[in-house]
């Protein structure tokens, strides 16, 4: 019995696993940099995150009696865990990575129906859950280049070694604290902020969020490989830049400049690797512009006036929730029809109407 195939009888050389692999390739430089900057604990944390995601996804698939192998091989679970690891404090204990990765792939993804069905970006959902549930572990940072040996690193990640002695603050957190003490921006930034360091990444921060330059390089690579389009990233960066510029012009002593906002926290990573997540972002170019802009604006609003020093994950989740709405209202115009869906008028009809 020959099965009859429908046209087309050709296919572009493209696949889901290839897309995921390309994104992971784009993450390699910034990840290696994070390993170098933060030492072995970062490597352990990253490894634990990936392993937990794979195990959790396999268990969830088995429980649903769905094929395990193809779903694991598509690479989406690994990518989710990878992005989550990059957004964690590099010396966080192992169970933070395990709880986060399991939450991401099981609750945020498989419960919604697996790949392509989730409403929220799994990595961001997990990050928000961790931040709310374990605020201490999620905001304990280390100064750059504090590299303990292999065994000491094991103690950091798996042994619950107290890292208070070496704890440091991320720039955004530091500024927020200083503001709460009534200090001005200039005093808060003094000795803590060097834009050049922020650009190439030698500073305290999440595992993979410190080097704006390497993230940008990964993003440009994805743009060149046509894995992502420019719309959502550019809109997100604009969404952060525009209000920052405006507020900085109005009151420079209290509102930091756009460069500070662009180079701090998770903005760059989110712009190129999170808001470009196809599953949780709109379908159309115009929708993606709106989506990115919303992510940027909300990030700025939460950072500036909210309770948390960083707002990227919250902003992304809020806009994820708005995505079905955006897709409902922003659609391409269909050939031969008006934007409202009515057939275009013919010249005869136009003549008759005139």
């Amino acid at each position, binding site marked *: 019995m020959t099965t009859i195939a429908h046209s*087309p009888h050709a*296919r572009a050389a493209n696949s889901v696993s290839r897309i995921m692999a390309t994104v992971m390739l784009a993450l390699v430089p910034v990840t290696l940099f994070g390993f170098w900057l933060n030492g072995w604990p970062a490597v352990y944390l990253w490894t634990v995150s990936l392993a937990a995601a794979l195990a959790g996804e396999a268990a969830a698939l088995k429980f649903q009696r769905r094929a395990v192998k193809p779903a694991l091989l598509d690479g989406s679970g690994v990518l989710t865990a990878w992005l989550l690891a990059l957004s964690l404090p590099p010396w966080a204990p192992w169970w933070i990575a395990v709880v986060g990765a399991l939450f991401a792939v099981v609750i945020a993804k498989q419960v919604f129906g697996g790949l392509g069905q989730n409403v929220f970006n799994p990595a961001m959902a997990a990050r928000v859950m961790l931040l709310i549930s374990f605020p201490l572990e999620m905001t304990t940072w280390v100064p750059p280049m504090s590299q303990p040996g292999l065994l000491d690193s094991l103690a950091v990640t798996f042994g619950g070694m107290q890292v208070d002695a070496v704890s440091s603050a991320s720039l955004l957190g530091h500024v927020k604290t200083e503001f709460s003490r009534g200090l001005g921006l200039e005093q808060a930034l003094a000795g803590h902020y060097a834009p050049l360091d922020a650009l190439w990444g030698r500073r305290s921060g999440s595992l993979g969020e410190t080097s704006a330059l390497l993230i940008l390089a990964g993003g440009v690579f994805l743009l060149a490989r046509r894995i992502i389009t420019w719309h959502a990233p550019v809109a997100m960066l604009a969404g952060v830049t525009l209000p920052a510029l405006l507020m900085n012009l109005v009151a420079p002593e209290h509102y930091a400049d756009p460069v500070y906002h662009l180079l701090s926290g998770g903005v760059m990573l989110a712009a190129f690797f999170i808001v470009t997540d196809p599953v949780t972002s709109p379908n159309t170019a115009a929708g993606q512009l709106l989506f990115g802009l919303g992510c940027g604006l909300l990030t700025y609003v939460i950072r500036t006036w909210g309770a948390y020093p960083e707002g990227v994950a919250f902003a992304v989740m809020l806009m994820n929730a708005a995505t079905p709405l955006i897709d409902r209202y922003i659609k391409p115009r269909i050939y031969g029809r008006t934007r409202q869906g009515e057939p275009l*008028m013919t010249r005869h009809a136009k003549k008759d109407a005139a």
Partner: protein
Amino acid sequence: MKLFKMRGGVHPEARKADSSERPIRILPLPPLLHVPLQQHIGAPAKPVVRVGEKVLAGQLLGVGQGHVTAPVHAPTSGYVVAIGDHPAPHPSGLSAATVTIAPDGEGRWFEYEVPADPFVLAPDDISARAGAAGIVGLGGAAFPSSVKLDASRQSGVDTLVINGGECEPYLTCDDRIMRERAAGIVTGIRLIQHAVGAGHAIVGIEDNKPEALAAMRAAAVATGVQIRAVPAMYPMGWEKQMIHALLGREVPAEGRSADIGVLVHNVATAWAVQQAICLARPLVSRIVTVSGGAVIAPCNLEVPIGTPVQALFDACGGFRTTPARLVLGGPMMGQQIVRTSVPVVKGTSGVLALTQAEIGRAAPAPCIRCSTCVRACPVGLLPLEIAARVRSDDLAGAVALGLKDCIGCGSCSYVCPSGIPLVHFFNYAKGDLAAQARSKAKQETTRKLAAERSARMERIVREREEAAAARKAAKAAKEAAARAAATTEAAA
């Protein structure tokens, strides 16, 4: 000159050089020709020959019935050996009414009257002659040309667009015919222009065919026919895409190109019109590209209609490996066939024998909403959303998203990284819609008949009752009169 920017589209691997560099060869006559009576959109032709009858090349085998139809002619001289069912060139592999001819090898033509100067013929005479010659759109749609010509002349068109896009990968039959028979094509274009009274004629040719462009430009000198290069992109050969690229006009939804004053014909159709009008030769052969990775020597052949596909592959050296899939037409919109005994028909632009490597992976993965299909769709649809509706049997939702505007070009399926057969879903849904419309029409008819019947029955009952009442009244009146008479008598 200005070209207009187009939306969507894909750039599949062209694979045209496999067959484009060899001149068109005339395929020798096979032992039997199977000429189906329906090779066009519309009603099938009715056979006018009998088994055993001797026919000449170009002689009528079947006449068109109804309005949208086309006749079929004998591809060569010989004997009618059968009129019956033969496997049709269709994926179902089902049979269709076919006239089978055993060629006598003489190739004698049936003599029709040849006009001295075709350009003095009346416009409606040209379309009548094209219709009588059995010409249908040779780009693949096989819509009867005379119907298009008549409609365009009546509604009035200002521009004739000739489609030399040939955007399907592998196919080079239009490329070769433009290189080798440009003069005849240009004459055909001018005849069509004359038939519909179009002021302008523009030929759009994809820029990946420089030799065809040069040949057509040389042939069109001082004829008023413009030759324009358009970017090579699939589906440039979609007539609305071609119109948009050349003229920047957009055909309204649910409308036809004539609504915006444009008529579109394919280059091979223009050649067929020239043959039919200037030489009085009906459409009995066509150029077919034989290609695909499994074919030893791909090339273009001029093939009598009715030739079994196997003869074409044999003429190209046979198969290099066992083909994974046989396709009629191009790989983007062509149809799979399961046997090589099916005949070449008027709409057969190519026969392909593809290897597994050319077809690509089959097993679909989940949709990741990457919207590559949205960017590829030339119509501006959201293929992923429509497919989701179709999968959950929400046909109304799919229609609301523009299912009926889908042209089935397959660009979305081609680019989908998950390998989801999107266009398959859409065609399935369109089939379901058509079936629903048919059953609705049937129900309407039944309901109407039932209503009429009950009205009729009511009327009969009512008439019967009225008649009975009238009889009763008459009887009562009669009795009353009798009683009155008796009383009067008694009183008297």
